[in-house]
C-alpha cells in the first residue's frame, strides 16, 4: 500500500532536509566567507574609516577630518594628472592588448609545432616579473641603450624614448602591452579553440571567406571571452605600478605617474596615510564601476551567443 503524507508533514520534512542539505555547504563554505570578510571587507571598511582621518603613519592620535581627503584628491594636481594618465593607460592598454592578443591568437590558432612554439614565445613576457620587464626596457630605451644604438646604425638619430614626455608615455603604454598581451592571446586562443568545427564547415559550404568566417562565426562565439579579457585587462591596468616604477620612475617631470604610484608615494613617502587611503577608496570604486559597466555593456553581445 502506498503511503500518503498529510500536507503539514509534507511541508515539515523538506524544511529539515533543507537544513541538512545546507549544513555541508555552511561548514565547507563558512571558513572561506570568514576569511573573505576578515581579509577584504573589514580592511576595506577600515580603510574607508582611515580615509576620513589625517593619520600620518606615526602617531595614534589622528583626528577625523570628514571628507577633506576626498576633496583634496580632486584638487591635487599631481593626483589629477596621475588619474588622467592612468585612464589613458587603461584605455589604450585595454584596446591594444585585446587587439594584438586577438590578432595573434587568430593567426596561430591552428595546430602545428610552429604555432605551439609561437604561443610559448608570445606568452613568455607575461610570466616575467613586471619589475624585470621595466628595468629591461629601461636599459634598452635609454639614450645610449640598445634601441638607440640600433637606430644609430640605421642612420636614425637618438629617440628620447624615456626623456621626452610624449615618448615616455608611449613607451610606458607599449611596454605594458608587450608584457601583457600574451595573457589576452591565451584566453582568445581558448575561446577560438572551443568554437565547434561544424560551424566553420557549414560556413565553408556556404562559400564564406576566412575573414567572413572570423567575423561572423568566431567573433560572436567568443563574445564571453572578450568580456572576460576586457574586464581583466581594464582592472589590471587601473592599478599598474611596478612597470612604471622600474621603467620611468614616474618621470620625466612626473608625466608617467599612475594613480597607484601616487597612492604609494603619498602614503608611505609623504606619510599621508589618510590621504592615500582616500585615493585607494576612490580607485576601488572607479574600478568596480568600470568593471561592472563593461560587463553589463557586453551582455548584449553575449546574449546573442546564448540565443
Amino acid at each position, binding site marked *: 500500500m502506498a503511503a500518503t503524507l498529510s500536507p503539514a508533514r509534507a511541508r515539515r520534512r523538506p524544511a529539515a532536509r533543507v537544513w541538512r542539505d545546507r549544513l555541508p555547504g555552511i561548514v565547507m563554505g563558512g571558513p572561506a566567507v570568514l576569511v573573505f570578510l576578515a581579509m577584504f571587507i573589514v*580592511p576595506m571598511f577600515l580603510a574607508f574609516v582611515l580615509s576620513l582621518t589625517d593619520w600620518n*603613519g606615526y602617531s595614534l592620535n589622528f583626528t577625523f577630518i570628514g571628507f577633506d581627503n576626498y576633496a583634496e584628491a580632486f584638487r591635487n594636481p*599631481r593626483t589629477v594628472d596621475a588619474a588622467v594618465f592612468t585612464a589613458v593607460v587603461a584605455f589604450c592598454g585595454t584596446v591594444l592588448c585585446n587587439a594584438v592578443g586577438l590578432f595573434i591568437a587568430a593567426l596561430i590558432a591552428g595546430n602545428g609545432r610552429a604555432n605551439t612554439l609561437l604561443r610559448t614565445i608570445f606568452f613568455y613576457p607575461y610570466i616575467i616579473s613586471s619589475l624585470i620587464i621595466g628595468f629591461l626596457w629601461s636599459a634598452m630605451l*635609454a639614450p645610449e641603450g640598445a634601441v638607440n644604438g640600433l637606430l644609430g646604425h640605421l642612420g636614425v638619430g637618438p629617440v628620447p624614448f624615456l626623456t621626452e614626455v610624449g615618448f615616455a608615455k608611449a613607451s610606458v603604454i607599449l611596454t605594458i602591452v608587450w608584457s601583457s598581451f600574451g595573457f589576452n592571446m591565451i584566453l582568445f586562443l581558448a575561446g577560438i579553440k572551443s568554437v565547434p568545427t561544424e560551424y566553420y564547415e557549414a560556413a565553408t559550404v556556404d562559400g564564406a571567406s576566412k575573414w567572413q568566417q572570423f567575423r561572423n562565426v568566431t567573433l560572436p562565439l567568443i563574445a564571453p571571452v572578450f568580456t572576460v579579457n576586457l574586464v581583466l585587462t581594464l582592472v589590471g591596468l587601473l592599478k599598474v605600478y611596478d612597470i612604471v616604477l622600474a621603467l620611468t620612475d614616474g*618621470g*620625466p617631470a612626473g608625466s608617467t605617474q599612475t594613480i597607484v604610484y601616487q597612492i*604609494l608615494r603619498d602614503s608611505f613617502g609623504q*606619510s599621508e596615510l589618510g590621504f592615500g587611503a582616500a585615493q585607494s577608496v576612490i*580607485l576601488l570604486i572607479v574600478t568596480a564601476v568600470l568593471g561592472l559597466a563593461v560587463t553589463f555593456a557586453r551582455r548584449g553581445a553575449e546574449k546573442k551567443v546564448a540565443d
Partner: protein
Amino acid sequence: MIKHRTLASVGTLTVAALALTGCAGSDDDGGSGGTSEVSLLVNVTPNLTEEYWNELVKPFEDAHPDIDVVVQNPGAEGVAAALPRLLTAGDAPDVVQSMPPTTDLAPELVDLSRYDWAKSGPLADQYSIDGKYYMAGIGFQLQSLWFYNKTAFEEAGIAAVPTTVEELTAALGKLKDAGWTPVQTGGDWMTSHSLQALGLPSIIAEDPDWFAHMSAGEATFSDTYGDAVATYADWVAKGYIPKDSLGIKYPDAEQAFLTGKTAIYPMGSWFAGTEAKAEEKAEIGVFRAPAVAGVDAPAMGANIASPYSILKSSESQDAAAELVEFLVTDQDAVASQLEVDGNFRDGYEYEMDDLGKELLQIVADTPAESYTPTGQGYGERTLPTGYSDEINAQTQALIGGTSADKVDSAMDDWFASTAG
C-alpha cells in the same frame, strides 16, 4: 569602538593591499625581555652590514655588561618603512637610526635636550623642533658640492675653481668649447640636485629663514628661486646640461663622471666614498657650490649623517641614551661610521684620500650657521609635503624644454595650494 591602534595597523596594510593587492611581510623581533636590553633599529646596507653593526656596539656592551644591545634589521623595507609599522603595532625599538626627526615623528621621540652631546652635535640646532633636540648624529653629509674632473679643467684652461655662479657659468662654457659634456646629471631623484646646488647657496645666504617664509606663504618661489631657475634654463639652452640626461640612471651617471666622460658632477659628499673605492677613475677634485657674485657666505646644504633617536615608548630610555652617546661621541665608533659611508666631521678623522681631505677641509671651513637643509628640509626648516618631488619634476621639465617662467609659475601655484 575601534581602537586607533587596530585601525591604524589594519589600515596600513589595507592601503597597500588596495593599491597593489600585494601582501605585507611580517617581522618578529622576539626580544628576550631583559630590563637592560636595548633594541637598535638600523638600516642594513652593503656597507653597513648586520655584522658591522654588531661589531660597532660590542665595545659598548663590553663596557656596560648590564646592557644588551639587540640590533634589529628591518630587511628590504628599510627603517623608514618599518618604523611606522612597528609604532602602530606597539612594537617600536628603543633606538632608531637614520630616521631624521620631523614634526610628524617628533611626538614619538624622546627630547634629548638634557644631554650636552645631543645639543652640541653636528647640525643639532638645524634639526631641533620647537627648541627640542630629538636626534644626535655622527657627522655631515654635504650636499652643495660640485665635483670636477681636473683633466677637463686643465684642457679647458680653467686655472682656479669657480667661486661665484657667474664664474661657474663661464667655466661651463669653456668646458663645452673644449669638447666636454659640462654637467653630469641624470633622471630619477638626482635631477633637482643640480638646481638646488645652483640656487640654495645664494637663496639661503640672502634669506636664512627662506624655508619658514616659503612655508608660511610670505615669499614666492619665482621671487626667490627665479634667478637660479633662469640660469639653469640658460645652461640647458646652451647645452651645458644635455637634454638626454633624464634617461640616465644614478649609477650610470656616477660611473660616467667617475671614469672621466664628463666634467662636473653635482652630488653629495657620499660620492667620495665611491671614488675612494674605485680602481679606475679620473683625477677628481671638489669645490663648494658657489653663490652669485656679491654674496659673501654661501650656504652649504647638508644633512645629518646617521642620526639616532630614542623612542618615547622605550622602557630603557637611560640605557638607550648611554648607547646613543657612545655611538655619536666615541672616537673609534664615530670614525668607523663616518668612514664606512664616506661622511665627515671635524675632529674625527679616518684614513682618506685627497678628495676626502678636500671635503674635510670644506667641513672645517664652513661655519655652523651656514648649513642649510635641502629638498623638503628638516627640523623647523621644512617646506610643504611633496616639495622634493615637485622641484624634481619641475627641474626635469626645465631639461625637457619648459621655459623658466612656466616653471616659476608652476612652483608658485604649487606653493599657493600647499603653503600657509
